């Protein structure tokens, strides 16, 4: 039995179904992120685990105990909010010690634990500062320490880095992951940022319109998207309508241009409409090596993105994005040039709708 089980949970607000039939088993010490666009139900699901929303249907079981109807303040969870939500009238130490005082811990234990937490977030000298004297990143670290001070069974993070600027986001996300691993705490992390979800998580749940689209490791989610939504939401993806030509050999045709795919086309007939997709980084300019797909193209546009150069190539009537690593010693093609690009057959994904 998993440590945290969310079984057939759904939530209706009036007539709209915010979350429908959500099922997930989370193991102890695992970090699972809920990824999706705003309004997909990821935060609502998190809030049901926290006890701020009651599910319309289904059960939530934590450590073998059914907590579905338990009030939020009796659940053994810590929560970190997007807006930090530090108590403005209390110092950093006051914030971290708040939960401990409520649990009627001795002053000695409260001080000891507060100090531990300040060390954990590398802010021991900030104990007597007020939240308004801290930067956003510092406030969020204090909020994390506050949530962890009671040593909860589960840590919930609701878009904790969305209000911070890009640099701090990246460093703090590594810090959160470090702390989570060090403490071995079970965590759910809600985000709409795919990079965040992919880099942090043991598993990612991709959600859309209240439904789970796919659950898997970041590797699975990125490389083998199961639905059209996952394919297009996670990473940049080229997609195009195509037609099955020869299911046995994996041949499909897009506007008369033929692609070979390694995907299983069994069960599809010649002439079936499918959606094919290729990640931009899977295309290469043709060289001497033989590749499965060798395609004529025209260069449409070139965008320099720093470490990566994104080139738009027109294959048949469709424009595809192609990413290559920046190499200052390699000459880039010019807009309007004709050339050839290649990709392996494993790169051509056929997605079920």
């Amino acid at each position: 039995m998993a440590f945290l089980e969310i079984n057939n949970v759904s939530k209706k607000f009036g007539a709209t179904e915010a979350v429908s039939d959500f099922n997930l088993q989370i193991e102890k010490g695992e970090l699972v992120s809920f990824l999706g666009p705003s309004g997909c139900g990821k935060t609502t699901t998190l809030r049901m685990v926290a006890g701020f929303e009651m599910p319309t249907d289904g059960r939530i079981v934590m450590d073998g105990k059914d907590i579905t109807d338990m009030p939020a303040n009796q659940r053994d969870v810590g929560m970190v909010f997007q807006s930090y939500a530090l108590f403005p009238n209390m110092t950093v130490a006051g914030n971290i010690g708040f939960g401990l005082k409520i649990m009627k811990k001795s002053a000695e234990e409260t001080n000891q634990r507060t100090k531990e937490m300040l060390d954990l977030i590398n802010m021991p000298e900030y104990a007597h500062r007020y939240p308004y004297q801290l930067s956003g990143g510092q406030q969020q670290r204090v909020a994390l320490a506050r949530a962890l001070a009671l040593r909860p069974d589960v840590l919930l993070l609701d878009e904790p880095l969305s209000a911070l600027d890009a640099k701090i986001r990246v460093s703090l996300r590594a810090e959160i992951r470090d702390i989570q691993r060090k403490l071995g705490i079970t965590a759910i992390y809600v985000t709409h940022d795919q990079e965040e979800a992919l880099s942090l998580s043991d598993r990612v749940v991709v959600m859309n319109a209240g439904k789970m689209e796919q659950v898997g490791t970041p590797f699975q989610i990125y490389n083998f998207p199961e639905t059209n939504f996952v394919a297009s939401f996670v990473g940049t993806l080229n997609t195009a309508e195509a037609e099955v030509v020869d299911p046995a050999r994996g041949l499909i045709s897009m506007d008369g241009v033929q692609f070979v795919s390694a995907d299983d086309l069994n069960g599809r007939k010649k002439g079936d409409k499918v959606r094919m997709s290729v990640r931009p980084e899977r295309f290469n300019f043709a060289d001497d090596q033989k590749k499965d797909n060798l395609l004529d193209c025209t260069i449409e546009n070139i965008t320099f993105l720093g470490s990566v150069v994104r080139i738009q190539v027109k294959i048949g009537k469709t424009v595809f994005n192609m990413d290559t690593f920046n190499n200052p010693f390699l000459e880039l093609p010019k807009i309007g040039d004709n050339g050839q690009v290649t990709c392996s057959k494993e790169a051509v994904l056929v997605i079920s709708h």
Partner: protein
Amino acid sequence: MKKINIWAWIILFIGMIYFFLPLISTLEFSMKMIKDRYTFEAFRVAFTDRVFFERFGYSVLWALLTITLSTLLVVPTAYWVHWKLPKARPFVEFVTLMPFVVPAVVLTFGFIRLYARPPFFLNDRPILLIAGYIILSLPYMFRAVDTGLRAIDVRTLTEAALSLGAGWGTILTQVIFPNLRVAILSGVFLTFAIVMGEFTFASLLAKPAFGPYMEEIGSMRAYTPQALSLVSFLLTWASIGLLQWIGRGRVQEQVAGAH
């Protein structure tokens, strides 16, 4: 630029005259109790009247009771409206505006008609007066607290406290009240000033308050009421000054870049 500056000063000066001239004349008049001499005799007479202290004391007591009850009524209500019933806010706000819509005279007669007969018989108790004062204080208290609540993220702070195991009592006393301190205080001082000078309720309910006392003195003597009105004016000022002092803003210094 120069021209605008001069006009601004002139307008400010006219405003100051409009504001201070009546006060200065009142002071001047109140000092003329003894012929051909400026003295503080009127103030001495006012302050040696035993009744003055008695009435003043009553009013202070009732003001404090009003403030306590009004705070206990308004803060949890406004908090609950913000946290759970945001749709009810316009309705609650409308209710709190009652003293602006229904004149105090009408309210008092309503009170008397309803509560001075069986089964209540409350007309002898100060509770009826305090209830009236609470209604008078509602627009100020509610608006002050409402503004204070808007300035903090009530919902998230409450949820943060809940997830740390806090109950409603703890949340109200340790999270909500302290963060509303300045807002509550501004409501409190306004309420204090209103109750101290209130006339209609106290007079119609025949309560020995400070407002009716000023009126009685005014109809009997010439100089003392002027002194008294100055005193009550200074009292209001002192309240507001106290409010400014307690509520003086913390410097909002964000440590930029130092993450």
